[in-house]
C-alpha cells in the first residue's frame, strides 16, 4: 500500500442546476481508496452514490457544478486538461455502470466493443494483439472466447455483466468503480458477479469502489464501507464492524434490512424505517435523518452533525456519538 491513495475525494460537492432550483446531490464527501483495497459505499436510492461516480471520470452532465478535489493517484481530475482526461478515462480508472444491461451498444459485436478501448489507449496495439487480449479478457470473466462474435441481445443478463467487467479491465486500470453492478440481475447471478469482481480486484491489487444499496453485501465483501445519507457520508469504518455494530441509527436500519427473496422492492427499503429518503433539493434542518430517526432527540433538528470518531478507525455523524452535545 503506497501512501498516495489510488482514488481520493476531498470535500466533493455536486449541485445540479434544475428548473426547480439547485439540487445539492453531494454535500462534502471525503473518501479514499488505496491500491489493493475494496471500499464499499452504501445508501438508499437518491443519496448521491452515482453522482459521486460521475465525478471520478468527470462524466457528470453540464448542469452539474462540482467543487472539491477528485484525485486519481494524486492527480486532480476536475482540473485536468481535456486530452489528459480522455487518457485517464478507462486507462487509469474504469466503471461498471449501474444500468449495465444497457451499457453495451446493441448493434455492435461484443468483440468490437471490447477492442475499442484497447486501440484507443494503446497506440501500439495490432489487430492480433487486440484479438488475443479480447480472448483473455473474456476467459478471465468466465466467458467462452467465441462470445466475442455475439451481439448483446444474444447474452443473458449475467453474461452481459461479465462482458461489462471484461470491458472495464480492457486497459488494465488501477481503479475499478462498480456502481450497483448486480442490481439488475437475479439473486443467484448477483452473488457470482460480485465474487468475480472482488476476486479480480484482489488478484490484481486494484483499488475498487463498490457501490450498493445493500449494506449486507458490502459488509461481507469489502475492507471498509462508507454509508451515505442525503449527499453525505454519515458513517465510515471497517466493513465488518460497521455492519455488525452500527453506530449511526441509519446504518442500524440498513444493516437490519434483509432482503426478502423474490420481493425486489424490499431490497430498496430498509426495514423499520418510516418514510422516504429526503429530496436533496429540500432537506430537513439539522441532522437530515431526524424525521425518520427512531432515536431522534429534541436537539436533532437544530444541530449540524459532523463525522466524529466513533471507535477504532471509525467515524459517524450523529449526536449520539458526539460527547460534546448534551443528549439529555
Amino acid at each position, binding site marked *: 500500500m503506497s501512501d498516495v491513495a489510488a482514488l481520493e475525494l476531498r470535500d466533493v460537492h455536486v449541485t445540479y442546476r434544475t428548473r426547480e432550483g439547485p439540487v445539492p446531490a453531494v454535500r462534502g464527501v471525503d473518501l479514499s481508496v488505496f491500491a489493493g483495497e475494496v471500499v464499499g459505499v452504501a445508501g438508499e436510492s437518491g443519496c448521491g452514490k452515482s453522482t459521486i461516480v460521475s465525478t471520478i471520470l468527470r*462524466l457528470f452532465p453540464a448542469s452539474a457544478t462540482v467543487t472539491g478535489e477528485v484525485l486519481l493517484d494524486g492527480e486532480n481530475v476536475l482540473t485536468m486538461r481535456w486530452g489528459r482526461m480522455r487518457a485517464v478515462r478507462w486507462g487509469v480508472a474504469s466503471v461498471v455502470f449501474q444500468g449495465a444491461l*444497457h451499457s453495451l451498444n446493441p448493434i455492435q459485436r461484443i468483440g468490437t466493443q471490447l477492442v475499442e478501448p484497447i486501440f484507443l489507449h494503446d497506440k501500439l496495439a495490432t489487430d492480433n494483439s487486440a484479438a488475443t487480449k479480447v480472448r483473455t479478457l473474456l476467459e478471465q470473466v*468466465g466467458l467462452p472466447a467465441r462470445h466475442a462474435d455475439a451481439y448483446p*441481445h444474444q447474452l*443473458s443478463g449475467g453474461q452481459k455483466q461479465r462482458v461489462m467487467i471484461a470491458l472495464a479491465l480492457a486497459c488494465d486500470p488501477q481503479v475499478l468503480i462498480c456502481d450497483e453492478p448486480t442490481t439488475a440481475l*437475479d439473486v443467484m447471478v448477483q*452473488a457470482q458477479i460480485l465474487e468475480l469482481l472482488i476476486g479480480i480486484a484482489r488478484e490484481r491489487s486494484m483499488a475498487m469502489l463498490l457501490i450498493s444499496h445493500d449494506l449486507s453485501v458490502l459488509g461481507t465483501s469489502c475492507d471498509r464501507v462508507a454509508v451515505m445519507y442525503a449527499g453525505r457520508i454519515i458513517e465510515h469504518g471497517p466493513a465488518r464492524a460497521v455492519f455488525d455494530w452500527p453506530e449511526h441509527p441509519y446504518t442500524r436500519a440498513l444493516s437490519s434490512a434483509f432482503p426478502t427473496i423474490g420481493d425486489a422492492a424490499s431490497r430498496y427499503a430498509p426495514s423499520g424505517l418510516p418514510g422516504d429518503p429526503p429530496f436533496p433539493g429540500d432537506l430537513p434542518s439539522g441532522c437530515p435523518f431526524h424525521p425518520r430517526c427512531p432515536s431522534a432527540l429534541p436537539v436533532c433538528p437544530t444541530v449540524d452533525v459532523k463525522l466524529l470518531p466513533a471507535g477504532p478507525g471509525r467515524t459517524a455523524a450523529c449526536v449520539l456519538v458526539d460527547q460534546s452535545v448534551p443528549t439529555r
Partner: protein
Amino acid sequence: MAVAAAVRAADSDPEPQRPARGGQQGGLGRFIGYRLVAGLGTLVFVLLFNFFLFRMLPGDPAARYRAVKSISPADLAKIRDELTAPLPQQFVAYLKDPLALDGISSWKGQPVWDLVQGRAWPTLVLLGATTIVAVVIGVWIGIKAGWNRGSRFDKVSTAVTLLFYATPEFWLGLLLILLFSTGIGFFPGIFPSGGVIDSGIDPLSFEGITSIADHTVLPAVALAAVYLAEYSLIMRASMVDELGQDYLMTARAKGMMDHMVRRRHAVPNASLPTITLIFLNIGFIIGGAITVETVFSYPGLGLLTFEAVSEQDYVLMQALFLVFTMSVIVFNIIADIVIAVIDPRIRT
C-alpha cells in the same frame, strides 16, 4: 454469505445460454429468404387486386380506342370481345398477361410499356437528384441538431425544416417557377420550365446532360425540400433519443472524443428509422411525384399517370399501377434487408 460460495464459471448462470454464433450470417440469409417470399406473396395479391380494380372502374374503355386513328377496326373488335367476355374467361386472359405486356394505350395507340419506358428515365433522374440532396443535407442537419439539442443551430434548423415540411409541394413548385423560371423583380428566370431536355439534343451528350440538369433543378428542389425536412426531423428525433442511452456513457467513459462517440455509437443506432423511411419514400416517389411532375410538366411517370387518368387510358393505368406497387414492394424489401444488415436484433 452462503450464496457467495456459488461457482464462478459462467456456465452456472441460470439464465438460458443462447448460442453466440449460430444464426448470424445464417440468420440474415434466412431473413432475406423469408422477406422475398413474403414480398412475392404481396405481389400476387396486388396482381389479383388489379384485375378486379380495373373492372370496377366506370366508363367504356373500348370507346377510348375509337379516338385513336392508328387502331384497326379488327383490333377494336378484338378489344371489345375481350371486355365483354364472361369474368372467369377474362380472368384467364388476364393471368396470361397480368403485366399488360401486350397492352395498347387507348390514348396514344402505342404499346403501354413503350410509353412507360420513355417516361421512366426522367423520373429516375428526378428521384436520384432529390434523394441524394434530401438524404445528405437532411441527415446532416438532423444529426447536428439532435446531438446539440437546444443549440441555436437546432432551434433555427428545426423551425426551417418544420416550415418546409408543412409547405405543399405544388405551392412551392409554383413559387419556384415564378421566381426562377418566369423571373420576377430581382429574380432571374434562369431555369427552363416544362420538359426534361431541350428537343433535338442527344441526352447522353454533354449538352444533353446540362440541359437535363437545367430542367431537373427546380422540380428536384421542390421535391427535395419536403423530404429533406422529413429526414432531418426524424433523424433529429432519433439522435435526441440516443443522447440518454447508457452505451453512449460507456463510450465516453472509454475516453473517446465526442465526435467519435457520435459517429461510432449514436449515428448508427439513430439512423435505423431514417433508413427505413428513405427506402420507403424512394418506393413512393417513383409513383408519387405526380404533383411536382405535373406542376413542372416534367415528363416522368407521375405526369404520365396524370395523363393516363385524364385520358381514361385504362391499360396504361394498369401498367403504371403495377410499376408503382412493385416499386413500393421492392423498396420495402430492400429497407427491411438493409435494416437487418445493420441491426442484429431484427434477424434473430
